[in-house]
């Protein structure tokens, strides 16, 4: 079954897999996570706004993103971005945009919708008395949110936010469809060049498993440690 299993090909390609591929995957994950959490929080505030038009625009965006397959969204942005770039820069020809920038913008905007739902649940989990207390102290909307509601909402939602990040880390492998060299893309390139599909894909699966498993194990430990006893 494993006769002719060639471990050498993995060893030879390790520098390429990790220096090119894993760096791409981790950078993309980090950018999409930070952007997603910042924009997602802002979007959650809009979604909870008392102005109907604001909350329906934010809700429409979230629902649109959540009803589409990530692969389709990646294609959308990959082809749309050159035109948007041309429009912003006032040029006649579509602007050339690299695969990394395209992936970073796509994942940030896509994950924003998911982080938004998490932050919305986090904000809604804060008892209304907290907001009322803030107002009673004479704080405005921004200060009530910034000093009272959001810190608590973040604390409650840290485990879910991190779990979402683990899923994001796995989903970045889908940039394969626009031929980016992320970790899986690098493994696939070596696999096809050397005709070693079995070894490379099993190795890639093992690496993804170890990273995701370790991360979700850490999240579970964190969850029990930071739980606020009420």
């Amino acid at each position, binding site marked *: 079954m494993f006769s002719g299993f060639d471990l050498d090909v993995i060893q030879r390609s390790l520098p390429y897999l990790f220096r090119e591929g894993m760096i791409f995957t981790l950078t993309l994950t980090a950018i999409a996570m930070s952007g997603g959490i910042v924009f997602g929080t802002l979007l959650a505030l809009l979604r909870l706004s008392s102005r109907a038009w604001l909350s329906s625009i934010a809700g429409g965006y979230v629902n649109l993103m959540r009803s589409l397959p990530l692969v389709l969204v990646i294609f959308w942005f990959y082809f749309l971005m050159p035109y948007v770039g041309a429009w912003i820069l006032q040029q006649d020809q579509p602007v050339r945009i690299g695969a990394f920038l395209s992936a970073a913008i796509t994942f940030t905007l896509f994950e924003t919708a998911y982080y938004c*739902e998490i932050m919305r649940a986090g904000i809604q989990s804060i008892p209304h008395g907290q907001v009322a207390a803030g107002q009673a102290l004479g704080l405005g909307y921004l200060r009530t949110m910034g000093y009272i509601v959001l810190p608590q909402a973040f604390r409650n*939602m840290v485990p879910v936010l991190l779990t979402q990040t683990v899923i994001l880390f796995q989903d970045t492998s889908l940039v394969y469809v626009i031929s980016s060299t992320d970790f899986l893309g690098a493994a696939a390139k070596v696999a096809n060049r050397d005709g070693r599909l079995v070894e490379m894909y099993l190795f890639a699966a093992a690496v993804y498993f170890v990273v995701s498993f370790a991360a979700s194990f850490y999240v579970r430990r964190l969850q029990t440690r930071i739980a606020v006893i009420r």
Partner: protein
Amino acid sequence: MNYNWNWKIFFDPEPGGSGTYIQYLFVGLAWTLAVALCAWVIALAVGATVGTLRTGPSRWVERACAAYVELFRNVPLLVQMFLWYFVLPELLPTAIGDWIKQMPPPWGSYVPAVLCLGIYMSVRIAEQVRAGIQSLPRGQGMAGTALGLTLPQTYRYVILPMTFRIILPPLTSEFMNTMKNSAVALTIGLLELTGRAKAMQEFSFHVFEAFLAATVIYLLVNLAVVLAMRALERQVRVPGFIGVSTGVQAGH
């Protein structure tokens, strides 16, 4: 911005000769639904079994099921797709492997896609079922025991019917996730809706018409599923139990 919109493109024949582009996309939708529905059957059967066994009395069974969940949850769907499509036929005995590799075109990628997606989603359903069972008051199981039901009977007549009613809303979103995730099958050559929108873009160079059409089709199917499931939820609701929030979850 000089993009030539041409909405009539949908009525042009596609180069494969199977009809117009709009027909081509709808055949893609049929494949998307075929993958999603078959995968959903596998996911529900395996997921309900694994999720139920995780709440059972045997620690070893619990551990084995937990290992199954962790294994398939921590590997990206795309990697699993490649494992089923490229790697599995190589690891099986040569005769079976060759038989798999020689399956005629759409089935050669359809079968691995369904199996992969079914197993991948079964893990998420198992977690929902387990959470649903654990959210029931312990008295329910005890009441079953007090009535003289055996453990399987308690599960069959008391616990599981309640569980499935409680987890119906999350199961709805898992079904939609199954449909969305079926787009990943395009990487192993299955021309489902997203794959066909991409192919249409390559043939006709009308990127945005193709993707807009696919987007609208996905939104309509989503809407239909949401409405149907809402009706089902009203049908099977047990007063006081449904609407129990299962909390926010990470997803994609």
